[in-house]
């Protein structure tokens, strides 16, 4: 026993060559995230404190902004509209989620499916539909007037369309939160003879508290950073998101645009921080031994809940149906004969056909390369060791996109990639950059899905492999990847659908050759071709519906071929 232990001479394990490989791969992921996320955002920050000639001016842009009454009006507009939408959407979605999780109503799957449909279309589809329902030539314009609203353009339209488009997001969070309840709490309450109302306020509501906070923040952020809906139905009603667009694309005032973008970043960052805190609390609440709640039949309650869900589903279908109907109407509102006029007009005359191909290419690229990047990144983070500084950097960068609204990201991309001095300048306006931007934009959700799937694997697989001298990549290929294929399909579907409908980030980055379908809808609407705009929006939704079916078929096939071990 002659080990003389000197302080500060901690032995370092020799790094195996396979581990160097893992470190190199991790460094590559870090590099991609630095170049396509961190660097653009830093450029955006820089722009906000510079004047038009790239001189440092401190907070001058912010002060100038604060002294512009018209712009401050937008801040106020954005705030109250977002708050109002949150106040409507969260309770509506909560009740719906409550019906889905706590009642014995029938056709839950169908109800759930209908509520997910809005996610297949660009958010502005709701705005277009509203114009057909309540616009100048709207079917129900008289109803609206009777309610004392003079026109749908402006705040009323924005609020209604945003409620529709944010509803599925809030619902998903609340269903998860309500489903994660412990039946034993209710049994204990029943044993003590607790009334239904008291159970609701002492068990259900506190249990869903974090879900409610999270849903409210997500809805608020989605609304305040959304660009498509206010652009289509906002009329003269200015909000922050449309201001950014006007400042940057209209007035070419990049520095003030950067200031507004930073204002939009604030609520998103706040949401991100609170959500992070909330999700920690939520996981701590539910132990592995919890018994899932099972609803009991209660005819009256189930009936009321069914009626409510039917009403909501009818509204959602009315919104979608109107867009579909109008897209086929030959000449609204005078000639309602169905025809493909708007489709040919959009696809051929306005050359949306090319944009549609671009969209499919971009969505396909995002689905393939995004999934690859996200999964490899998550794998390296979760299952390999060493290179701690790079690891921390990747971990942070992977979570960052959640806190960056698309509009802000798109703006940051212009600032960064549109500099002639940037060696990546050649990417500007290309489909490649649009794809990369979209991957980064939706990175975090994919990353979290991958991390969840990877965390479900036994953490000792890698240790066992190393003891058998099997390099990590063989275990990745033979074990990790096959087990995680269902998650991979989920991630790629998420990427595809969002890439098809996204507007906010890419609206700053396209060229005439790389225009995307969702953006083409905006242009058609601007040109007054609202019929064609509706047709294109429906086409995107249809493409996404087909894609969803294909992904479902794929996941069925994957289940059969890689998951046989689950039920042998």
């Amino acid at each position: 026993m002659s080990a003389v232990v000197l302080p500060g001479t901690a032995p370092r394990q020799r790094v195996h060559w396979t581990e160097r490989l893992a470190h190199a791969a991790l460094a590559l992921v870090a590099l991609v995230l630095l170049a396509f996320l961190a660097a653009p955002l830093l450029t955006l920050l820089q722009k906000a404190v510079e004047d038009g000639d790239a001189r440092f001016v401190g907070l001058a842009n912010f002060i100038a902004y604060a002294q512009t009454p018209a712009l401050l009006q937008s801040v106020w507009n954005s705030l109250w509209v977002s708050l109002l939408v949150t106040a409507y959407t969260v309770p509506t979605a909560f009740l719906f989620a409550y019906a889905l999780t706590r009642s014995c109503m029938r056709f839950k799957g169908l109800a759930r499916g209908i509520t997910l449909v809005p996610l297949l279309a660009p958010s502005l589809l709701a705005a277009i539909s509203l114009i057909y329902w309540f616009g100048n030539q709207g079917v129900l314009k008289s109803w609206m007037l009777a309610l004392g609203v003079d026109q749908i353009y402006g705040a009323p339209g924005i609020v209604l369309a945003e409620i529709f488009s944010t509803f599925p997001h809030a619902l998903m969070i609340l269903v998860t939160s309500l489903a994660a309840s412990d039946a034993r709490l209710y049994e204990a309450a029943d044993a003590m003879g607790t009334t239904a109302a008291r159970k609701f306020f002492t068990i259900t509501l506190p249990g869903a508290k974090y879900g409610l906070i999270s849903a409210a923040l997500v809805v608020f952020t989605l609304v305040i950073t959304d660009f498509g809906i206010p652009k289509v139905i906002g009329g003269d009603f200015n909000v922050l998101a449309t201001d950014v667009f006007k400042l940057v694309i209209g007035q070419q005032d990049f520095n003030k645009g950067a200031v507004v973008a930073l204002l939009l970043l604030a609520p998103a960052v706040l949401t991100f921080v609170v959500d992070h805190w909330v999700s920690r609390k939520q996981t701590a609440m539910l132990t592995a031994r919890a018994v899932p709640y099972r609803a009991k039949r209660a005819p009256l309650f189930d009936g009321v809940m069914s009626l409510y869900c039917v009403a909501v589903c009818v509204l959602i279908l009315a919104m979608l149906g109107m867009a579909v109907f109008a897209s086929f109407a030959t000449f609204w509102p005078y000639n309602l004969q169905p025809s493909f006029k708007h489709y040919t007009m959009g696809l051929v005359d306005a050359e949306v056909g090319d944009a549609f191909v671009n969209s499919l290419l971009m969505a396909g690229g995002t689905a393939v390369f995004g999934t690859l990047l996200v999964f490899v990144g998550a794998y390296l983070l979760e299952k390999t060791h060493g290179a701690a500084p790079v690891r921390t950097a990747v971990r942070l960068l992977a979570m960052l996109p959640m806190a960056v609204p698309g509009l802000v990201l798109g703006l940051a991309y212009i600032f960064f990639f549109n500099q002639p001095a940037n060696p990546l300048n050649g990417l500007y306006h290309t489909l490649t950059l649009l794809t990369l931007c979209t991957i980064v934009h939706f990175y975090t959700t994919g990353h979290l899905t991958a991390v969840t799937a990877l965390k479900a694997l036994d953490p000792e697989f890698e240790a066992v492999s190393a003891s058998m001298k099997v390099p990590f990549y063989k275990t990745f290929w033979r074990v990790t990847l096959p087990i995680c294929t269902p998650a991979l399909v989920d991630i790629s579907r998420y990427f595809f659908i969002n890439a098809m409908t996204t507007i906010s980030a890419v609206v700053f980055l396209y060229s005439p050759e790389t225009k995307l379908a969702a953006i083409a809808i905006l242009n058609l609407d601007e040109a007054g071709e609202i019929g064609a705009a509706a047709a294109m929006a429906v086409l995107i939704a249809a493409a996404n519906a087909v894609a969803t079916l294909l992904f479902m078929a794929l996941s069925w096939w994957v289940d059969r071929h890689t998951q046989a071990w689950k039920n042998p």
Partner: protein
Amino acid sequence: MTSANPYLRLAGIRKDFGSFTALKGVDLDIAQGEFVCFLGPSGCGKTTLLRIIAGLEVQSAGRIELAGRDISTLPPAERDYGIVFQSYALFPNLSVADNVAYGLVNRKVPKAQALARVTELLKLVGLPGSEAKFPAQLSGGQQQRIALARALATSPGLLLLDEPLSALDAIVRVKLRGEIRSLQRQLGVTTIMVTHDQEEAFAVADRIVVMNHGAIEQVGTAMEVYRDPATLFVADFVGRINALPALAQDGGLRVGQQVLRCEHASVHGHASGRELRVYLRPEDVLARPIAPGDDNVFEALIEKIEFMGPYCLVRVAAPSLGTQPLTVYLSLNYLAEAQLHEGSRLPLRLLPERMRVFS
């Protein structure tokens, strides 16, 4: 038991996690073919020590030699061991045969040979013919046997078992530990098992390493650790014990109002009047035989009888030994024969050679 050429030698192994020291300089030699158990409460550093031997954690200081080779800084893949975890860590999407052959395939062992080895190993762990099954089709105990077969497939020099039985239910646990022991004897593979279950350690280990707070308290056979605990911690942690306050008195002990004779070596070397503690296991307090004139006999009053099966755990008050009650084992037959029940009085005797004294 330090041999000249230990198979595994740990020297000054220390592990710090930030300001927390998980291991405080552990020295240990393990001979070839030995079965050693690391025993201790959770958080004592036993698993950390095992993971350091495996190279899954890196020690903050110290040296590890395996078969004469310094492996202190080698990555896991360059050490020579097989490992079994509490969670089995079987690859769920691979068949039993693919799991067991996982390490063989990587060594380019010809297919037929690998298959033969798999068959041999499955027979060895008592699951012949289960090649085509998936882990999900097997019970916990069966899965752990497969994990064992997988760990042994490449004939490693060292077998590491990290609480391998903790996830199993009691009956399977007892059965499997016996099988692990006989398998180890048969193969002669040097084995280290981490456990918090002393009974398990007693049943399988050649030597037990009792650990607490990142340090080794005692290394010894089951009998040594049980009969002759080196420290207060070992005495308390291993088995049930009675602890009585005592005073040293002329080479003997005064406990309460009684002077007791003690024949354990630990009684020597204490100045008269020094405060001591006497540790004594319940089975070392006898109800019979007690002959008239025997020493160390005291009058006991039964306070509580807890039925344990063939014997009972009896709590007695011993006024002459102070206020502290004692726990003794009395056989069910004896209790019936002597018609003893709660409230009965009886004479008991402390065995002088078993009274372990701590200062």
